[in-house]
């Protein structure tokens, strides 16, 4: 019996297309049908573009008929986080201030997806301007974790992760400023990867914190992540921080890793990113995954990075500082919302700005803008922002020292499994702690991946293994990530993520 189309990986779908077993139109329809059936319950999408996706699918089928292929994933559909600018589709960033805004240009990532022939199914939900770790800060309502609809899929890219986990899309693009690809990956049992800073163009990625933001793939398999990575990565003259070097051999590394042989690979377990504060089941699955890698030939050592203790504080100063400056562009003048203040006969531009930004921004965005404004104001700059930048140097040095000894560093991706919606919503600090293990990679610009390593005994929810590598060595992540995936799937007898593991309520909506 053949596996239903929506359950197959992107690579498998590409093979099915090549074998003439299906068409891009047929499989794009299959995913659109799945979205129509379950997204009312999941709310992974803010906008679905059936017409556009099917038109792109028809074009892909025509190319294939002529024997012309635009890429390895030509004709395989994808979902895109709503923070990447798309012509012909709204780009809201999960914010009221951009409700209904249709950008006049495509982000480079989006342009590359289109050029590679991937039909874009729609735009996925996110915390407003990517500020959050639960997708509950979206102005358009939260996304629900497909494993348990009462729980959060993580954030900010909960929409992309949930859509992929719920088989609404085989692939998605996310963005990661402090863990927004990796933490939702861990919480939904999907693969998420943040490349080296500068590895993928930020042109058309609506900025939260320029020095931290990075786009990356969200998939169900490590190989799919590498195929997608290869398509969207590489130098872009439109982004001055884009790395002008060849893309690391990520696809080859994923294929090599799948052989499950890690002889000669040195892995370091980061002492500071585990143990106390980490849920027992998370720690247990992490430890077991490390044992498995050791059994596959890897050499493991314990590594300390003492300055990671300050990473959260440094991040929650640097990020809001950059965000407060970036979000100044939402001024009600050139695009987006314009709200006239009540009871003012002839309001000034400044009064309109104030009223618009009050009405258009949610709580978390306001909190971060105000913290950033505070940290950058004279008298506090040196003590906060300046000091945070120095700590960033110390964290860099810790990683540099560690990578002299090992090829990759490992930790749990997130200290806990998926938490209940509403549980941390009005407790910013509890929410911020979700990203304690993912933030350091953003501060240092390192590539990082989350791979599913099982579900816990206590709650049956997914756990992610985080792999970090030196800058520009993204291929190391794929080697080790693919090895972990292959070895675990051997143990499990198949992939961890399957429709019958998801919330039973989803079966009911499908059957209806």
């Amino acid at each position, binding site marked *: 019996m053949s596996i239903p189309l929506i359950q197959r990986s992107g690579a498998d779908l590409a093979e099915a297309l090549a074998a003439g077993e299906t068409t891009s139109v047929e499989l794009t329809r299959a995913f659109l049908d799945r979205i129509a059936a379950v997204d009312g319950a999941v709310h992974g999408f803010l906008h679905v573009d059936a017409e556009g996706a099917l038109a792109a699918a028809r074009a892909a089928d025509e190319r294939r008929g002529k024997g012309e292929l635009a890429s390895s994933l030509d004709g395989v559909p994808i979902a895109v986080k709503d923070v990447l600018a798309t012509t012909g589709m709204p780009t809201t960033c999960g914010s009221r201030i951009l409700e209904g*805004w249709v*950008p*006049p*240009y495509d982000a480079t990532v989006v342009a590359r997806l289109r050029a590679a022939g991937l039909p874009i199914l729609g735009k996925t939900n996110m915390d407003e301007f990517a500020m959050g770790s639960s997708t509950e800060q979206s102005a358009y309502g939260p996304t629900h974790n497909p494993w348990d609809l009462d729980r959060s899929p993580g954030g900010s890219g909960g929409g992309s992760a949930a859509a992929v986990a719920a088989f609404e899309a085989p692939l998605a693009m996310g963005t990661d400023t402090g863990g927004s690809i990796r933490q939702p990956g861990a919480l939904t049992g999907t693969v998420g990867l943040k490349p080296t*800073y*500068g590895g993928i163009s930020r042109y058309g990625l609506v900025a939260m914190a320029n*020095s931290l933001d990075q786009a990356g793939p969200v998939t169900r398999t490590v190989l799919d992540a590498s195929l997608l990575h290869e398509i969207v990565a590489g130098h872009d*003259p439109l982004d*001055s*921080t884009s790395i002008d070097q060849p893309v690391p051999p990520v696809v080859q590394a994923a294929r090599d890793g799948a052989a499950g042989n890690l002889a000669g690979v040195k892995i370091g377990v980061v002492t500071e990113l585990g143990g106390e504060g980490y849920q027992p089941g998370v720690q247990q699955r992490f430890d077991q995954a490390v044992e498995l890698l050791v059994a596959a030939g890897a050499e493991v050592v314990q590594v300390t990075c003492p*300055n990671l203790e*300050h990473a*959260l*504080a*440094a991040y*929650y100063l640097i990020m809001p500082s950059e965000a407060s400056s970036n979000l*100044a562009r939402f*001024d009600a003048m*050139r*695009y*987006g*919302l314009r709200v006239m203040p009540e009871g003012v006969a*002839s*309001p*000034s*531009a*400044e009064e309109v*700005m*104030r*009223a618009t930004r*009050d009405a258009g*921004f949610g*709580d978390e965005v*306001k*909190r971060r*803008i*105000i*913290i950033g*404004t*505070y940290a950058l*104001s004279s008298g506090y700059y*040196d*003590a*906060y922002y*300046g*000091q945070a*930048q*120095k*700590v*960033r*140097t*110390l964290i*860099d040095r810790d990683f540099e020292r560690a990578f002299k000894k090992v090829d990759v560093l490992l930790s749990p991706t997130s200290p806990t499994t998926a938490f209940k919606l509403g549980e941390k919503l009005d407790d*910013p*600090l509890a929410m*911020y702690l979700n990203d304690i293990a993912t933030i350091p990679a953003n*501060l240092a*610009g*390192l590539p990082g991946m989350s791979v599913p390593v099982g579900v816990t005994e206590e709650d049956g929810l997914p756990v992610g293994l985080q792999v970090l590598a030196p*800058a520009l060595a993204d291929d190391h992540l794929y080697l080790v990530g693919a090895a972990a995936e292959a070895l675990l799937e051997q143990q499990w007898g198949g992939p961890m993520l399957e429709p019958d593991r998801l919330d039973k309520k989803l079966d009911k909506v499908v059957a209806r």
Partner: protein
Amino acid sequence: MPETAGSTPSERADHRVEISRDEVRHLADLARIELDDAELDHLAPQLSVILESVASIRDVAADDIPPTSHPLPVVNVFREDVVRPSLTAEEALSGAPLVEGQRFAVPRILGDEQ
């Protein structure tokens, strides 16, 4: 928290950060966000808690450490000074709240005090 003798104010191990309603109002003012009383009541205590949690950064001894603003070295990027395709005026104005002629129409920019 003990106070470190002889330290400068910015390095004091004093993590109590109280950010008053008035300060929040002032910061929101600088950031051009109108906050009503209910929002100030809601946000001010949260901001104090957040700032308190990051205040430990002041105690990290890093005087001789250079700051990092960017994970990879940033260099100026230039391109040839040639005309290339760009947005048309219509495209650039497509998202504008209000357009007049081929321009963004904005509220008055001079206040009574100017």
